[in-house]
């Protein structure tokens, strides 16, 4: 097995462990779009833990930048297209109640019917989109 597959497996296990520790400690689901949405559109008494989770997430990125900057890559898409993609991801995860973490990891792990369906849909549409982009000549 290639080295990148081992990194992927270990990194994935850390993600699963993180979601489990959050659940064990506070009973909450580690869905990033939901955590971010709750910081932007707060409800009483529900903002502090979300802000701390995001600070931890951003802190990991900052640490990586100092020690292993090559771990953070760039997208082949230009800033204009990335703004559009970001808008789609923001609206989509909001109305679809989750993203790769909330549905793809946490929901699929507990065999939630909604999350299994959502994950199948966003992976399929993601594949279709890259196929269409390729057919149109790439980014």
């Amino acid at each position, binding site marked *: 097995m290639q080295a990148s*597959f081992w*990194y*992927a*497996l*270990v*990194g*994935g296990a*850390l*993600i*699963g*462990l*993180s*979601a489990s*520790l959050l*659940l*064990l*400690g*506070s*009973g909450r689901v580690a869905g990033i779009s*939901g955590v971010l949405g709750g910081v*932007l*559109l707060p409800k009483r008494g529900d903002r502090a*833990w979300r802000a*701390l*989770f*995001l600070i*931890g*997430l951003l802190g*990991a*990125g900052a640490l*990586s*930048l100092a020690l*292993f900057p090559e*771990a*953070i890559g*760039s997208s082949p*898409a230009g*800033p204009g297209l990335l703004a*559009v993609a*970001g*808008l*789609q*991801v923001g609206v*989509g*995860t*909001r109305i*679809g109640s*989750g993203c790769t973490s909330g*549905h793809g990891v946490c*929901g699929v*792990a*507990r065999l939630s019917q*909604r999350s299994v369906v959502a994950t199948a*849909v*966003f992976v399929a*549409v993601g594949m279709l*989109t*890259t*196929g269409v982009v*390729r057919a149109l000549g790439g980014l």
Partner: protein
Amino acid sequence: MNHLRSTLVALPTGFLFGLGLLVSGMTEPRRVLGFLDVTGDWDATLLFVMAGAVLVHAVLYRLIRRRPSPLFAEAFAVPSRRDIDGKLLAGAALFGAGWGLSGYCPGPALVSLSAGGAGIVSFVVGMVAGIYLAAAVQRPRAAEPSPRQAQANAAAGEVPYAGAVGDG
């Protein structure tokens, strides 16, 4: 004290989550696109990320849910909805399109923000705008459950989820 602990546990878990994304290769959008592009030179890496995360969480989730409650909170706030509705499907499809165009989903995008640059900043600004836009469009129609419905949910053992719409 427990409320404070329940809040503070989010900081190390957020850090660990970010570390997992970095180690796994999810913060390399070209690699993510290489997974989604099944017609090209397919990169299976992401499959291993999903497998590692889902397997670990599936096992630990079952062990943790044997407890009557979390360590520092009164109840688990795990979504209990089962219905597949149009919003779920349309939202997932729209998210998939944005993911396939950029190679970014919300977690890796936030972790990558510290690297800076016009690309990632544009994506995150768009994502934040999208969250506000969806909330603004949904607000007139989205109704809080009536007190009566909330009571029925409580009787059925459903924990009201603190997030705005649902699953995470």
